[in-house]
């Protein structure tokens, strides 16, 4: 595990180097209040980028050197059978108004994988339904699923008529009723999958690490066909390992919980993770929405270790099919994470847990801060003299000479660009040097071109997401609670009206700010043009990104290929075959 002091030092040094250069430029002709604000925002944002950058660099270093990425005691692999373990494990599928056919296909794929490994009898499967729509269809589907597997395993179904406490209340109700029967529980999401090999390994890890309260198996994004989803899946496969390795090495047993695809020691959870209701009303009070971070913090507070098993594969989930669904989910996560502002300073939490909570809050505050940075930079530029890039040094008019600060500003801009794009380049290098991974991603040329296009695509989407998230944060801080609707998990059809209604404000904001910059601030127009382009093109970009046809077209060109698309992950293939048969998705 890498020293967190070294990591903090690297982040602080990078941030200090960048902001001191900016300070040197700003102080030449005196510092205004606007410039102070500008400097403060640059410092915060640069620090935020530096954290992500160094995390990925550490991850790349770990993968390159083939370092052990976990602090977990890894049991002897010469005993691959779970039968040596007397532990009982429950697999939990908490669901609420999901696509039943997709859900059943996923559960059946997991059961089939367990049966194939001969370990189905070691796991009991619980479908914990909080659904309040189409209940009869849901229950008939589960009955059919049970009928197919009744002779080989245990599949239970439980329905609650109220979804008190939402997902965490659902799990807590399981724990109170049946937690006594099990040593461990594995929490899966309605669209997540885990292979038998990974489930068995997680149980073995829990057996071998008696201090472990929770082990998170990082899920890889798989299973969707739209361009937006395929790009996310590609990014998850190429860049994801660096982030996971960096995080696992940095945090050790001080890790976090991502809400699903994790194994939990039931006793530790029951004794320490009964969540209170926060005082006050929603959005910042009431039931805790993003319960996972809080549960990890409570386990750590009680002395249990929380690990990220970066070395495990076989853990999957589906991304949202399009940008609108991504933003719907983001709105929920935003509200949940901002609630954590009230928990960061709870008594007894470990410093690392406070760090996780703060990072979660910051991941959404970063958007309004970036927005404020853009506004401030416009105000500062607008209020400057026409020759703002020059200042005159010396007091005697004859001896005074102009000094350009263009070099410093371009250096700062370049440093930001390097910190944003270098991790992608490192991830690409790691794929290129590994013959198997290179082939699994479509070959050297295809993967390189895919990374370049992904970088452009994500740069164009970034301002759209920034503006949306700024709106979320403002509305939540103004006290508006959002809904908790299920995600739209299929990608057939495209909702034009929804898209236009959602992104017309972005388009207008982009067009107006571009016109303003063109006429009044030509010096910064081209610097800010990627942001204007993303906003102005928000509607067509969303339409193109949500297209399954375009997703399939890019796959035919070998772009954004992820290993699962080459049939290398049977459990995903099984679900896609089953769902395709039901006509829920264009495959």
């Amino acid at each position, binding site marked *: 595990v890498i020293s967190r002091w070294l990591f903090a030092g690297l982040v602080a040094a990078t941030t200090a180097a960048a902001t001191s250069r900016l300070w040197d430029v700003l102080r030449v002709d005196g510092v205004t209040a606007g410039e102070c604000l500008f400097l403060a925002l640059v410092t915060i944002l640069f620090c935020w980028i530096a954290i992500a950058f160094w995390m990925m660099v550490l991850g790349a270093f770990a993968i390159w050197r083939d370092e052990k990425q976990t602090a977990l005691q890894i049991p002897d692999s010469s005993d691959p059978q779970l039968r040596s373990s007397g532990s009982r494990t429950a697999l939990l599928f908490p669901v609420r108004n999901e696509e039943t056919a997709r859900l059943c296909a996923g559960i059946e794929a997991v059961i089939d994988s367990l049966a194939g490994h001969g370990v189905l009898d070691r796991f009991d499967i619980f479908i914990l339904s909080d659904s309040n729509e189409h209940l009869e269809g849901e229950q008939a589907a589960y009955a059919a699923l049970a009928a197919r597997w009744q002779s080989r395993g*245990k599949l239970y179904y439980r329905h609650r008529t109220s979804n008190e406490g939402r997902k965490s209340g659902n799990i807590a109700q399981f724990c109170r009723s049946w937690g006594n029967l099990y040593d461990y529980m594995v929490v899966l999401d309605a669209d997540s999958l885990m292979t038998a090999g990974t489930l068995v390994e997680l149980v073995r890890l829990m057996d071998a690490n008696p201090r472990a309260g929770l082990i998170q198996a990082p899920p890889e994004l798989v299973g969707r066909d739209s361009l937006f989803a395929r790009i996310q899946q590609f990014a998850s496969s190429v860049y994801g390992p660096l982030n996971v390795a960096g995080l696992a090495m940095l945090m050790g047993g001080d890790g976090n919980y991502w809400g699903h695809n994790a194994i939990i020691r039931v006793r530790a959870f029951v004794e320490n993770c009964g969540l209170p209701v926060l005082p006050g009303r929603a959005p910042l009070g009431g039931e805790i929405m993003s319960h996972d971070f809080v549960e990890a913090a409570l386990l750590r507070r009680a002395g249990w270790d929380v690990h990220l098993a970066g070395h495990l594969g076989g853990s999957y989930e589906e991304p949202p099919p399009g940008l609108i669904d991504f933003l719907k989910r983001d709105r929920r996560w935003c509200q949940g994470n901002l609630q954590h502002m009230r928990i960061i300073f709870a008594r007894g939490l470990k410093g690392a847990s406070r760090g996780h909570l703060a990072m979660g809050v910051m991941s959404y505050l970063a958007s309004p801060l970036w927005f404020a940075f853009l506004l401030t930079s416009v105000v500062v530029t607008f209020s400057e003299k026409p020759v703002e890039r020059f200042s005159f040094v010396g007091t005697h008019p004859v001896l005074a000479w102009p000094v350009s600060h263009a070099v410093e500003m371009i250096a700062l801009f370049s440093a930001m660009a390097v910190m944003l794009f270098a991790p992608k380049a490192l991830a690409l290098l790691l794929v290129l040097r590994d013959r198997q991974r290179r082939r699994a991603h479509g070959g050297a040329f295809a993967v390189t071109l895919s990374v370049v296009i992904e970088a452009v695509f994500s740069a164009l989407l970034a301002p759209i997401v920034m503006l949306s998230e700024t709106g979320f944060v403002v509305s939540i801080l103004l006290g508006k609670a959002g809904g908790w609707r299920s995600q739209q998990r299929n990608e057939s059809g495209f909702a034009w009206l929804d898209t236009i209604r959602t992104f017309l404000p972005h388009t207008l904001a982009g067009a107006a700010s571009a016109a303003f910059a063109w006429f009044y601030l030509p010096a910064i127009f081209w610097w800010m043009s990627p942001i204007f382009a993303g906003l102005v093109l928000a509607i067509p970009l969303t339409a193109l990104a949500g297209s399954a046809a375009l997703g399939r077209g890019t796959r035919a060109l070998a772009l954004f290929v992820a290993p699962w698309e080459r049939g290398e992950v049977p459990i995903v293939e099984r679900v896609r075959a089953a769902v395709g048969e039901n006509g829920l998705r264009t495959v």
Partner: protein
Amino acid sequence: MGSHPAECADPQPPAGAAMLRHGPGFSLTPEPQPIAMPEQTLAPLTPAFLMASLGLAMRLAYMRLAGSFRSVRP
């Protein structure tokens, strides 16, 4: 399927549950074995404690950094 045909722990069984319960070998849930799940407190730290912690953390960071600089000084 499961060997303990049992009532759903929910006091109001859902519509359709009866059909499932009488299905071939299908049990809704195992026999419940209730245990308590105590509610945790998330009371915030007091401001004085916060300030003291911040001061201590800054002092530790300073000592650590100063120590690092000393260790690399020729």
